[in-house]
C-alpha cells in the first residue's frame, strides 16, 4: 500500500517538467537577475589594487595613509592600542586587544574595497583604490 502511494506520488512529480512553471515574464526576470548579480560582482568585488588605507576609530576617520610607505600605526581604541601594519601595498591588523582576534586573522589586505573591522575596539580599516570617490565613504 505504501509502495503504491509512493509510486503514484513519483508519477505525479514527473507529470510536469520544471520548465512548465516558467512564464515568459519569469524567464525575463530571471535573466535580468542573473545579469544584475554579475554586475554587482563586477562593481563591488574589484580586483583593483588599493593605493590608500583609511583607518577609522569609532565613528570618525582616524587617519588615511598611502600603502606605498612602510608604517606601523598605533590606534588608541576603547580597549587599548590596536597596531596596524602597512607595507608593500598591503595593510593588516597586527595586534589587537580584543577577544575574538577576527580582525588580526583577516591578515594582509591589498585590494580596493577590502575592509577589516574590529567591533570590540571600534577600529576599522578600509582599502581605497584610485577610482573610488571620497564622498561615497562618508555616511
Amino acid at each position, binding site marked *: 500500500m505504501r509502495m503504491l502511494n509512493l509510486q503514484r506520488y513519483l508519477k505525479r512529480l514527473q507529470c510536469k517538467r520544471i520548465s512548465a*512553471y516558467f512564464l515568459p515574464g519569469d524567464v525575463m526576470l530571471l535573466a535580468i537577475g542573473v545579469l544584475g548579480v554579475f554586475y554587482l560582482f563586477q562593481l563591488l568585488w574589484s580586483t583593483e589594487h588599493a593605493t590608500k588605507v583609511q583607518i577609522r576609530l569609532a565613528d570618525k576617520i582616524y587617519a588615511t595613509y598611502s600603502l606605498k610607505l612602510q608604517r606601523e600605526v598605533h590606534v588608541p581604541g576603547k580597549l587599548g592600542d590596536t597596531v596596524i601594519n602597512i607595507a608593500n601595498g598591503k595593510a593588516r591588523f597586527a595586534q589587537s586587544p580584543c577577544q575574538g582576534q577576527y580582525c588580526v586573522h583577516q591578515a594582509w589586505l591589498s585590494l580596493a574595497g577590502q575592509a577589516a573591522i574590529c567591533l570590540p575596539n571600534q577600529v576599522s580599516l578600509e582599502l581605497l583604490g584610485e577610482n573610488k570617490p571620497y564622498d561615497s565613504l562618508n555616511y
Partner: protein
Amino acid sequence: MKITQIQTTVEDHHIAKLAAIAIALHMVEAVIPSPIPGVKPGLANIVTLYVLYEYGFAATAWVSILRVFASSLLLGQFLSPTFALSLSGAVLSLAALWLAQHLPKKWFGPITLSILAAFAHIGGQLLLVRLWLIPHAGVAYLIPVFATAALGFGLMNGIITAKLISNKQKKSV
C-alpha cells in the same frame, strides 16, 4: 464569572494554520547550519507566497508578520538584532509582493514574485545592517554574495510554490 470569548472567523483559522506551517519551516531552518552566516533558504516564504495566491494580500501580511513574531519568541530572539533583521526583511518583501501582485498574471507567475520578494528581503536586511548594526562601507563587499543567494533561493522557492499551486488546482478540478 463571565468568560470572554474572542469571536474567530474561518479566515482567522486559515491564517493561524498557515502561519503555524510557516513557523515550523522557520524553526527547521534555524537548526540547519549554513556555510555562510546569514544565508538561508527562506523556506517560510513558500508559505507566504502560497497564501498570496490562495487567500490574497491581507492574509499574506498576517501570516508573514505572525511568523516573524512567533518564531523570534520561540527562538528567544524577540527584540534582538536578529528579530529586527527578520522583521525588516519581511516588511520589505511584503511591500515588494504588494507591488508585484498587480503584474499581469499571464506573464508573471510565482517564480517572479518569489525572486522579487527574496531581493526585497535581503535589501531590507542589508539596509538595516548598514544603517544600524555595522555602519561601514565594507558591508558593500557582502552584497554580491547575498544577491546570489537571493536569486538562487528565490528561484527555488518560486518553483516549489508554483508546484504547490498547480497541485492544488489539479485537486480541485
